[in-house]
């Protein structure tokens, strides 16, 4: 197949929806691993990619800047299937300018042989789903690993030569107190990763944890804030930059792929539940395997929702995502992007937010204040 000539860069996301088992808090598209289903899934992923390229031949103008394999638990992937699939992608997309190639993994399934192959394929960033360094919590959450495995596998990845590693860490965890959280934060920082995603547990409807929520203790707002700000303090003291609500990175190690989401740059996603933002159109794929297969069998893209954004919605989406970044919104960037002034497009909203001290303006930038960081939803709601 003839490789396209490229003008613009794009992010590509591949969803690998299989796990050993589903964690009790998880509301992502994930299913118990089954090699037959996995094999079928990869063949349908290929169908989706080709169908997509068929329908959007314009995509040939783009080159891949980032590739992100998320899940699920991508570290469980069958090496052969994966190698085959990446080669399939390389035949269709321009990988020559690929800067960041991330794969997510659970400590348990990170192995030397597998990750050597991944490295060969170009993977240069690994995101480890550590979540906690307290075994009792890991067990409660339904994770398959123990705390010591995190450390072992982290060191293994270093030995294998991975120099850009993210650790996913959660706070506000069920039955955890502030001391336990402090312990996890210190353990994580001791590994000296390049990137830390530091999320509060979100109690999502429909999850087993939600149904059993009355059996667990959850932290109140004040402990929540104490834990969040302890993390922020320790990470920044250790040279991390707090660059997104829940993300910290050493300078030069911001997640390029995730920045595409927050900066409203174009990206394509393949696989169940994956989303795309291309030519001002947002699309999201179906959430379950059955309809994913069924739609592709009918020769349709497995989309459950798609919407082309008009002028105002595009601006509103832009701000909705961009305000999550601590560097804030640049008035000149906004003008360059939309040809209109942010100060007049959202005059009332900005005034209100400034008055309530949720955002502040410095030179030509609007950024969240410390208060705004705690009430980011209040800020975001103004723009929707």
């Amino acid at each position, binding site marked *: 197949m003839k490789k396209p000539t490229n003008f613009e860069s794009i992010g590509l*996301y591949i969803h690998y929806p299989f796990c050993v088992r589903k964690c009790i808090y998880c509301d992502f598209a994930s299913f118990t691993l089954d090699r037959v289903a996995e094999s079928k899934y990869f063949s349908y992923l290929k169908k989706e990619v080709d169908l997509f390229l068929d329908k959007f031949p314009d995509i040939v103008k783009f080159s891949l800047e980032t590739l992100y394999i998320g899940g699920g638990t991508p570290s469980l992937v069958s090496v052969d299937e994966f190698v085959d699939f990446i080669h399939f992608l390389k035949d269709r997309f321009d990988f020559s300018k690929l800067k960041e190639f991330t794969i997510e993994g659970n400590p348990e399934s990170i192995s030397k042989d597998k990750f050597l192959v991944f490295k060969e394929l170009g993977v240069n960033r690994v995101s480890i789903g550590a979540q906690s360094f307290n075994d009792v919590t890991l067990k409660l959450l339904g994770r398959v690993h123990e705390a010591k495995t995190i450390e072992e596998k982290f060191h293994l990845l270093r030995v294998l030569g991975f120099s850009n590693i993210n650790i996913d860490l959660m706070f506000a965890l069920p039955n955890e107190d502030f001391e336990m959280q402090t312990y996890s934060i210190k353990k994580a920082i001791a590994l000296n990763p390049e990137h830390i995603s530091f999320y509060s547990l979100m109690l999502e409807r429909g999850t087993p944890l939600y149904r059993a929520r009355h059996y667990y203790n959850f932290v109140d707002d004040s402990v929540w804030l104490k834990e969040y700000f302890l993390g922020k303090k320790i990470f920044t003291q250790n040279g991390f930059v707090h660059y997104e609500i829940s993300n910290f990175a050493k300078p030069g190690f911001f997640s390029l792929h995730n920045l595409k989401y927050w900066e409203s740059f174009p990206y394509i996603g393949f696989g169940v539940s994956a989303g795309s933002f291309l030519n001002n159109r947002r699309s999201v794929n179906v959430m379950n395997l059955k309809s994913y297969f069924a739609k592709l069998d009918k020769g349709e893209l497995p989309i459950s929702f798609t919407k082309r954004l008009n002028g105002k919605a595009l601006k509103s989406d832009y701000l909705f995502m961009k305000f999550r970044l601590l560097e804030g919104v640049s008035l000149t960037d906004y003008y360059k992007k939309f040809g209109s002034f942010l100060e007049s497009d959202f005059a009332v909203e900005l005034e209100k937010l400034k008055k309530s001290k949720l955002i502040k303006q410095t030179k030509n930038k609007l950024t969240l204040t410390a208060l705004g960081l705690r009430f980011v*939803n209040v800020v975001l709601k103004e723009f929707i």
Partner: protein
Amino acid sequence: MDKIRNFSIIAHIDHGKSTLSDRFLEHGGLVVKGEQVLDSMELEKDRGITIRAHPITLNIKVNGIDYVFNLIDTPGHVDFFYEVSRSLKACEGAVLLVDATQGVEAQTIANTYLALENDLVIIPVVNKIDVKDADIEGTINEIKNILGFKDEDILKISAKTGENVDKLIEAIVDRIPPPSGSEDAPLKALVFDSHFDTYKGVIVYVRVKDGTIKKGDRIKFMSNEKEFEVEEVGIFRFKMEPIEELTAGMVGYFAALIRDPLDVQIGDTVTNAFRVADAPISGFRKNVPMVFAGIFPLNTNEFEDLKKSLEKLRLNDPAITIEPDTSEALGFGFRCGFSGLLHMEIAIERLKIEFGQDIIATVPNVEYEVVLRDGRTVPIDNPAKFEDPSKILEIREPIVDASIMVPPDFIGNVMELLNTRRATYKDMLYPEEKRVVIRFEVPLQEIITDFFDALKSVTRGYGTLDYEFIGFKKADIVKVDILINKKPVDALSFMAHEDKAYYVARSMLEKMRKVIPRQMFEVNLQAAIGSKIIAKERIVPYRKDVLAKCYGGDVTRKKKLLEKQKEGKKKMKMIGNVEIPQEAFFSILSVKSSEKTD
């Protein structure tokens, strides 16, 4: 005149009043049997009146003799004590209709008491005898035991099938006396209702007691001495039907190009301006607003709409007074006066339902007389206009002479209720064995918020209340301000007796604490009399609102989640920087004076 019978039907809702009316209409030849009669409520809606139906005049032949039946409807709700009693005063008799499947209801008893008070002849009737599970004997026993009628007085009919309706018609002729009065005497007519017609002005509903009234007559309302020239007189069929003249004993209407609905008051007496009657019909009460409340549009930009609606409402309900008002918290609106709390509630309902207005009504209060140190006496009907306490010498509150009619079993409960209302007991009358009238004086303020409800609940629905303003009396009245984050919210200020201010304030603040959602900052609620804080509450802030994750695949989903929360916010009313949901506002303003905190 001896061929006229004026009567009304007393019945509980669904006991078959409209079905029986239909049968009367058939006998009167106004409708053919089986034809669907227009629901009187529908007729009403066309005219914008929903409190009651208009009267109807029927020509019915009984034993070969032509009679004129005037069926006068009464407001269904006995709590419109005065209006009901005026309608009954236009009659000589009443048909008491009881559903044999339901038995005697409390409201029916209350209405029967009223009819007896007005010396009406009552024909007790058991209805729905055709229904399979009708308990005819049981119902007859109830009528005998509770109301004291005799077996032989009670008729058994089916309004639906028409069975024995002719017997009822005969009984109406035989038992209800014809009107008395003299056609030669000066005109004396009772005003019992009215409505507004765009072309003819106020249409006045009258029962002529003495004399005659015809086109060209110069008439005078005896209460206000206003004179008009009669343009049209007539009787009510389905529509108004002009006739030559109305004479003593008749029920009908007249129009006299009366442009101001306030000139016509229910219970007033109409006489001839050149031949004035010696005395008006007794029992008239001047229509004075007793209860005041602010009415504001929920959306401040709907002020003009509300204004138009209120003006229309007032044309058919002249007892409402309307003054423009402004509130810092609620924007532009009106200060409205009503004859009582129920009147206010009905007016508000009508504004909402008939006129589709989204409104907020403030806590109702009475009108106080404030004597200032400079010697002036000013009326105050709005807490926002309360004078600086240092300038006030004394405050006087309106006192009413009230009576409660109940079966004797409930005396104890009523006395207990009165104890909590600053009432002064006067005496007790036993008009007959089955009912007692408890008379007392009470500050009007004490009975305007939830007294009806309380009375109904302690008397299982049997109690009725009537009251009449007797004067102002000095009282320790204070104005209580409600402050949200130190800022007084004018719309929440209220006036109360000093002894009760604390309790009302406490329950108001507690209600606020429960219904105002947590905000980003702490909300301090205070109740103050002048600069003295008498109660306080705080609403602890929520301290964070963070969506931890938002990535490529879930932008839309997360956005929708926040959108939904934002939708909820749109229905909030901003008081200062505090967001208060609409429903919360309603419940704060509906705090009852008797709600005490434990």
